[in-house]
């Protein structure tokens, strides 16, 4: 158990081993450890970000659906309104058309009546002339009595 130069040998090997460990062993493994720690942290952050983004996307999807529903509702209301408008318009058109047809028919009827009246009047005039000729038994000078006849016709 005597103290001797073994001490110096051990001290030198100690220094060399520490130096070697410090130079070639500790840094690479520690770097790997740190890198892995960073990677894991990044992964967790990315997962967190992903979750957040998913939430946002869901929110957005909900918003879009909500908006679409609202729009659909609005379109439906508008369509119904338009439909009733079209119906109203058609009704109006039909009514005016009917009235127009009625008016035309009335006018035509009146014309017919008038025409009938005219022909009737002409016939009446002829009849009246013939009748009067017979009554007075002589032939009337149509020219001489034309004024009278015209007055008669107008009065009928």
């Amino acid at each position: 158990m005597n103290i001797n130069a073994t001490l110096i040998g051990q001290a030198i090997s100690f220094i060399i081993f520490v130096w070697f460990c410090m130079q070639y062993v500790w840094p690479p493994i520690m770097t790997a450890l740190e890198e892995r720690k960073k990677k894991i942290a990044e992964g967790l952050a990315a997962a967190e970000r992903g979750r957040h983004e998913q939430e946002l996307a869901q929110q957005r999807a909900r918003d879009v659906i909500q908006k679409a529903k609202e729009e659909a509702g609005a379109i439906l209301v508008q369509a119904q309104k338009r439909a009733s408008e079209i119906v109203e318009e058609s009704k109006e058109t039909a009514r005016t058309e009917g009235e127009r047809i009625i008016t035309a028919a009335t006018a035509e009827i009146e014309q017919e009546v008038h025409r009938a009246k005219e022909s009737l009047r002409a016939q009446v005039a002829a009849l009246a002339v013939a009748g009067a000729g017979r009554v007075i038994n002589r032939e009337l000078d149509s020219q001489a009595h034309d004024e009278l006849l015209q007055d008669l016709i107008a009065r009928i």
Partner: protein
Amino acid sequence: MASDTLTSGDYIKHHLQNMTFGQHADGSWGLAHSAAEAKEMGFWAFHLDSLGWSIALGVLFLWFFRRVAKSATAGVPSGVQNFAEWVMEFIDDSVRGSFTAKNNMVAPMAMTIFIWVFLMNFMDLVAVDFLPQVAAAIGSGVFDADPHHVYFKVVATTDPNITFGMALSVFVLMLYYSVKMKGLGGFLSELAFQPFGKWGLPVNLLLEGVTLISKPISLALRLFGNMYAGEMIFILIAIMYGAGWLLGSFAGVLQLGWAIFHILIITLQAFIFMTLTIVYMEMAHQEHH
């Protein structure tokens, strides 16, 4: 095992003698053939067994971790890398826990100390006679030496040279960083003017000097003492094997128990050596008030 030609005392002495290489009294260099011869060699002699095991285990440690370091990836670690990372994170946590200054050398030094000391201590768990017997067989077979004069101590940390070698290196680093961090004046004034101010200078010097010197000594002696005592108990248990089958089987139970308990001790001693080193380095970096 206590052989017929050896008494228990001889057996113990034989086990506690290092394989010493140095200069003989007649001026030639060679291995010491007895404890007395080893003593005569004086300071310039080497314990080949302690140094050999210490360096071999240190190289084993560095080889293993260098291999891991070369293929270290930030991806999913393999089994070996997992183990290395587990050990290193444990050490790194210990360093972060007690060392607050910035010094890239402290953590690798703590790691070297912890694993190297652990490996050297671990040799204590190899049966006390196994490697010495192998060495004796090789010594007598290959080198034609007297097997009783082949000394071979396996546990390097039971050699105070080894523990003092490390403790003194730590001490030198401690002094170096003390001076580097606080300046020579700062370091000396810490020794001279604390804790009692400048009027208590002699007392301060005495107290702080003792505190300073006691650091490497306690560091080295704690490890040496624990391992030496543990080794001694293994040797005493081994002697019992030669005392009949009843005591022999009792010794087997004792050895098993002591070995299991010793697993705790070798780890604990390595851990204490590392932690104290970290704490001393921290003290060297910090001005204490």
